[in-house]
């Protein structure tokens, strides 16, 4: 992959999980640049601020926890997908909840994918690797 690294916005309130995701991404060798926001408002702020910057600085991909303090992840998702300036960025829900209700609501709000954080770390790593392998090529999409 010769293209520049993708800017990934990680929206995660749990410090431990943010750290685990960051380390797993590093291990996957996908070369994401990870920017973290720990709540929904911060996430939307980062997205909008970077929208105004050069293509290198814009957020390419959002990894979103659904269970956030204050504004919920589903609300953040809805706001991103209803904003013409933001909605082109794929949003992947990565969350602990495997409740059918949450999954359905996320897809209704146009999440691009819904991934459940596995408790088992080996599977967690696998999941992040798969995610990196698939979405890491997002910037090679000619339709982007």
């Amino acid at each position, binding site marked *: 992959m010769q293209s520049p690294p993708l800017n990934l916005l990680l929206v995660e*309130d*749990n410090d*431990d*999980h943010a*750290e*685990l995701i960051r*380390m797993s991404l590093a291990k996957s060798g996908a070369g994401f640049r990870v920017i973290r926001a720990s709540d929904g408002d911060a996430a939307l702020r980062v997205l909008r601020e970077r929208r105004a910057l050069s293509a290198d600085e814009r957020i390419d991909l959002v990894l979103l926890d659904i*269970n*956030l*303090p*204050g504004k919920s992840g589903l609300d953040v998702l809805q706001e991103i997908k209803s904003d013409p300036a933001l909605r082109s960025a794929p949003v992947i829900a990565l*969350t*602990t*909840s*495997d*409740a059918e*209700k949450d999954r359905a609501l996320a897809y209704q709000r146009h999440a691009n994918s819904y991934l459940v*954080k*596995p*408790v*088992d*770390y*080996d599977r*967690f790593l696998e999941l992040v690797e798969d995610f990196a392998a698939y979405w890491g090529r997002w910037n090679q999409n000619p339709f982007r």
Partner: protein
Amino acid sequence: MPRTSPQADTSSRAKPAWPAAWLALLALLGTALCARLEFDPAACALAFAFFAAAAVGLRLIVFKSGSVPNVRPSEDAAPPKVETALRLSEERLQLAVEGAGVGIWDWPDVSTDQIWWADKTYELLGYTPGEIQPTISHFAEMLHPDDSARVIDSLRVLKPQSFARQSEYRLRTKSGEYRWFLSSSVATLAPDESTARVIGAIQDVHERRATDELLRRANEGLRNKSEEMEQILYIVSHDLKSPLVTIHGFAHLLRESALEGFRDEDPLPSIDRIAKAAKHMGALIEDILQFSRIGRAPEETEDVDLAAVIDEQRLALADETRLANCDWEVRAPLPVLRANRTRLVQVMQNLIGNALKYGCDKERNRIVIGFEPAGPGRCQIYVQDFGPGIHPSNHGRVFALFQRLEKRKPGNGLGLAIVKRVMELYQGEARVESALGQGARFILEFPEAMLAAPASSRA
């Protein structure tokens, strides 16, 4: 179930001119009532036979009352054998009607206001037979205002030859009390096919309605329980799993570092993360268990001095109080309560802890704890803060299971749900009075009967 009884056949043959509609009508009524009373099939069949046979009898009664037009007076011509059969039938009808506790009514001509009641109908409504002259207007007045329109409308659109129409409504009895009645009625046609006559029967079903209401409430309780259960499952799927992800992940990373002899990594932060996650998980499990245990077994009560409980909390919450920079204002007198000590401590700790956590956003803060009467036979404890307050639209949500308005502060959304559940257990109620920017006053209201001694002046 036999469609006709031998007696009915005999009567029909003896007097073929008698309207078959009468037989059908009453048989129908009898069957409907029996079915409604949930008799076993044999009893239904028996009652059916009674009703069908006794159709003749009723015809006599109605005729004797003199209020029914279109009935041919013809019995004087009947041979003695038939007369005996008629008398028998009449007796049977009366016994059957009395036994079933059914009050018959007849609206012989729907273009008039006059109706006829059987003796039992008067009795069911608290009158002695003949005490009042029943009319449709009077009947309409007796109907409960909530049932009136529905019943009057349905009376007018009764279709002949249809099954007996059944409905339930409340009627005001002589004493002024409204009671529930089950009504079954059928109509007959005029030559122009409009409804000519309506006849029916009422039955007091007040006790059954009361039982239905109890059942409905019990069902609602069960539904709430199952919703609660679903919320608990949801929380297990999220909040309990979350610390496990941390524990598993960092244990794995620690292991990798250990294999490399911790060359370039300090293991302590990872160990701390694991310990913190485990502690959080333990606390959550403990709270869920506590919540589910409330009210499961009868709880022992004793005399508990509220002032002493608050003193204990002052010690238990010393750190939180210092952090919140908060003064406690405990207003005497406080009562001694006949309550379960653990529950009272739990409830007070939750409310005071919340006031310290969420209600102390100023430089210096203050909470007020007190006790006061609250309407007839009720009294209340209150914990008041002067913090940011809670918008009225969220007042219900704060007591709901796993609902957290402020997720930035530690907590798991069980505290106030526990308070609410405990108060319900003691026929009490937990609520909040608050508006944004106005602070919050959490109130525990309960029956005065829980007071073990007059409020003490100690605070």
